[in-house]
């Protein structure tokens, strides 16, 4: 490519409620701009992690550069930055938005505006992005583009009169979207003659190249050999390679300048030197100010992660370190459990985030993990006046030292069609929700407002919500603050021994129910031993539920015919193999999946 004119660059993202077709539109844009031929198109090229494709959601922000021949005869460079749609990943959305100048808002022609549509639009406007709406799925029989246009104008206040009516799935009217990207989204500002000022919005660890930093240049330029400095960490590097993003690959180039989106490598070995959100500048001619920081987020959900095989502890540490590089919102610190040995206390944005990290550790790093029950951050006020933030139930001080405890509360907004208002309100009541009010968005849809304790929604609230509304409800929440609450620590005793990894904090009113379910579940998971094993749930030393795993009495392989010894040995091996995946607690062997089963207590 010849000289790039800054006014012909468009940096944008696509925002949408989950399932409204964001990834499909991204695919179409990449396809129509001719970066790939139709034959090369894989389904959803942007989602290149296996996990993303299986779950149909976008986890990591990704960027791609394509070239568009516009109707005005000019060639434009599109930098499309993909953003996740799930509420757990608001932080990632905010990082991606900071690298853009505009956003395409995709709204489903049948469903209209949903909770996350609003959340994402506000986030985009917060970042001063130019937003224009696109109405997708107009091929659906239930599509009502005119109604949705009205909704967009009434609720968000965006002009939707010339919003492209498209079907990303069928490739209908995609040209209109491309033209509007050119006409409605501003070209990036900045000058290549100024000192370098670039925002890191993502990064990736590559075993050969070291850390690959993804950035957007606001001012100045960068090329191979440029001495750059990370403003927050102070680390200085010589740039080895710069380039931009093809579809799923890195394409090196000579130089990147103001307004451009790309990557650099600089033999960066220490992942901590390149903090996402940091500003890159010239080491010898630094810019006067770092760029405004990212929205800082704190992990909301914590759990313990332990290697199934204790010897893999260093591997788990390395894997977490590398994942953290890709995922700035992941938190971890070492901890030790009596039951599970050495592991880490990890913090996540939400339960989905937790599951995704767990699966990535298992798939990408081949680790076998034991995960403890997730919990939130509680505030424990001690009688001494000291306040501690509790992320691990085992660290709860003795009850005599506790004055009172607080738990995090969220403000939740649930968008639901009117027929499901009853069941959803019931669900919120069960989860200790406080009803704040209800607004009718239109005749058939209402927005329910509740305050809910975070620890009631981290388990399976999403699933329950979906099943009780046949998938129609959508949910968004933000942390409101902490409130005093009657919380107790529920302990599990197996064969009279407390298993620290199974303890959790629960509201006093739910303790009995949870304890009972927990005992039942463990009874199913723990195999029979040579002796009887009592399983007890206790609060403050008082047993509130009990189950018993009976002693093993008969386990005979009676028949062994025709001298087929190999088959018999296989059966014995299977029996022995099963034991390997056990954790020894006292003289009881507990299968690893028992520790996980507490995650699924509410499975009906």
């Amino acid at each position, binding site marked *: 490519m010849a000289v790039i004119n800054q006014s012909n660059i468009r940096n944008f993202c696509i925002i949408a409620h989950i399932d409204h077709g964001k990834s499909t539109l991204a695919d179409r844009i990449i396809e129509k701009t001719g970066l790939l031929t139709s034959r090369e198109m894989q389904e959803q090229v942007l989602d290149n992690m296996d996990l993303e494709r299986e779950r149909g959601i976008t986890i990591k922000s990704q960027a791609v550069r394509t070239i568009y021949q516009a109707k005005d005869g000019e060639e434009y460079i599109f930098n499309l930055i993909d953003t996740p749609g799930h509420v757990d990943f608001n932080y990632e959305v905010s990082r991606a938005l900071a690298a853009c100048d505009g956003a395409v808002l995709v709204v489903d022609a049948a469903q209209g505006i949903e909770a996350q549509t609003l959340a994402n639009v506000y986030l985009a406007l917060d970042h001063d992005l130019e937003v224009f709406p696109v109405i997708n799925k107009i091929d659906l029989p239930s599509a009502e583009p005119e109604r949705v246009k009205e909704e967009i104008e009434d609720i968000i206040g965006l002009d939707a009169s010339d919003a492209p009516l498209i079907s990303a799935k069928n490739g209908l009217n995609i040209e209109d979207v491309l033209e509007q990207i050119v006409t409605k989204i501003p070209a990036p500002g900045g000058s290549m003659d100024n000192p370098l000022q670039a925002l890191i919005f993502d990064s990736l660890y590559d075993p050969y190249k070291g850390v690959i930093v993804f950035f957007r240049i606001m001012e100045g330029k960068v090329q191979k050999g440029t001495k750059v400095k990370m403003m927050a960490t102070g680390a200085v590097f010589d740039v080895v390679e710069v380039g931009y993003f093809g579809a799923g690959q890195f394409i090196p180039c000579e130089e990147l300048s103001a307004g451009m989106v790309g990557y650099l490598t600089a033999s960066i070995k220490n992942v901590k030197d390149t903090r996402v959100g940091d500003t890159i500048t010239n080491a010898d001619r630094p810019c006067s100010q770092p760029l405004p920081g990212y929205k800082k987020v704190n992990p909301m959900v914590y759990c313990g992660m332990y290697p199934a095989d204790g010897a893999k502890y260093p591997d788990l540490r390395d894997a977490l370190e590398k994942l953290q590089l890709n995922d700035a919102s992941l938190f971890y610190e070492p901890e030790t459990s009596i039951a599970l040995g050495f592991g880490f206390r990890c913090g996540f944005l939400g339960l989905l985030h937790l599951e995704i990290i767990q699966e990535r550790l298992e798939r990408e790093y081949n680790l076998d993990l034991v995960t403890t029950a997730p919990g939130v951050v509680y505030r424990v006020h001690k009688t001494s006046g000291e306040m501690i933030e509790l992320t691990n139930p085992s660290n709860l001080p003795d009850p005599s030292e506790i004055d009172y405890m607080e738990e995090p509360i969220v403000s939740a907004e649930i968008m639901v069609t009117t027929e499901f208002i009853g069941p959803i309100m019931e669900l919120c009541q069960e989860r200790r929700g406080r009803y704040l009010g209800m607004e009718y968005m239109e005749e058939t849809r209402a927005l329910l407002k509740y305050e809910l304790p975070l620890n009631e929604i981290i388990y399976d609230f999403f699933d329950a919500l979906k099943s009780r509304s046949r998938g129609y409800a959508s949910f968004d929440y933000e942390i409101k603050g902490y409130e005093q609450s009657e919380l107790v620590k529920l302990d599990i005793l197996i064969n009279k021994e407390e298993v620290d990894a199974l303890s959790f904090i629960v509201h006093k009113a739910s303790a009995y129910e949870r304890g009972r379910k927990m005992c039942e579940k463990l009874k199913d998971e723990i*195999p*029979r031993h*040579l002796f009887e094993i009592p399983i007890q749930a206790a609060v403050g030393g008082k047993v509130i539920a009990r189950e018993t795993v009976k002693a*093993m*009495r*008969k*386990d*005979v*392989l*009676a*028949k*062994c*015919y*025709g*001298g*087929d*010894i*190999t088959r*018999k*040995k296989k*059966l*014995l*091996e299977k*029996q*022995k193999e099963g*034991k390997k995946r056990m954790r020894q607690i006292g003289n009881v062997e507990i299968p690893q999946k028992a520790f996980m089963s507490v995650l699924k207590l509410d499975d009906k």
Partner: protein
Amino acid sequence: MSETILSPAEAVKRPLGLYLHIPFCKRKCLYCDFLSAPAANGVIADYVEALIAQISQEAAQYRDYVVRTVFFGGGTPSLLSVSQMERIMKRIFMSFEVAKDAEITMESNPGTLDFEALKGYRNAGINRLSLGLQSACDAELQALGRIHSYSDFLENFHGAREAGFTNINVDLMSALPGQSLAGWLDTLKKVAELGPEHISAYSLIIEEGTPFWERYRDCGDSRKESEERCGSRPRQHDQNDGFGEKQPHWPALPDEDEERLMYEQTETLLQSYGYHRYEISNYAKAGKECLHNKGYWRRTDYLGLGLGAASLVKNMRWKMTDDLEAYQKVFHTEKSGRQSCREDVQVLTKAEQMEEFMFLGLRLTEGISAEEFEKQFGIGIRKVYGPVLDRLKKDELLTGLADGNMLKLTPRGVDLSNYVLAQFLLEEEE
């Protein structure tokens, strides 16, 4: 371990067991996962030719062996005609050196036998007959999908005695669908009173790939409590199980407690009739233990002939193919061969030999000998299994005799034999 007197020539040769598999039956029983299927007469005739060819071809490699036991298993070997059996027997005697007092067993099923056939098999050289009765209760037999009644069996049993069989085994199964403890004891008593020399008493195992698996898989979990047992639900009639009208319902499996009582009382009852237990599932009158099966537990060499048959020769294990067409292609005439139908060939490492020595030998009531272990492997048993032995002794699953030589399972160890025997598997060296 010699139990019979050998002629001087036989004494220097290694003992060998022959197993011949007959993979045919009249009808597949509902619980059966053995390699067996109904077949047309022509198929059986072709198979017999192939088997004879295999005998001739393989025998040459066993010149330094003397055959001590022969076992016809199946399937239903009594589906072979007397003349087919005669030809096979003749070929065995021609090709191998067979001990004068060799134990030669044939499995058979009531419903396939008559007096003429019994006489014929006896004359062909079969000296031990195994009858697959399973139960003395006709309703239970029907639930298993068996083709015979108890009275069919009685007729065959008496016929066998008359035909000259002085060594008879009866196969029985407990924990059958619809079986009560009383029903099981009744079966045992009826059979014990007939006085066969040997009784095999197995528990029904719900095997994958059988109609029983489809029906009872979720009930077989021994951890399930009695109230959760299923199987009594009426069966949908529109579902085709291949047995249609003959299988009107699927009775429930006995619950765990009842099954355990059946199992516990078997030994006591049979003892009162003069049977001693010499292996987990096998009982015999004095001197009538099945030598062939003991060979499996003691790891003497055996050669498997016929489809799917397993072999152990000089610490090498293998199986014949279970593909009938492939088997017959290789052994279709006596001159062919060269190709092998062997599958899963495995040369046992020393560690594997030690594992087998333990987990097979301990199935026998007399247990294993520490001296013999050291003699075979050149290393003391405690050096290999010390901690395991101590733990199992502490848990009262294993006991050593006063002389410190023999080791055997305690009664509780027998009950939990899977658990105990699995302890003797050694970690793989990496």
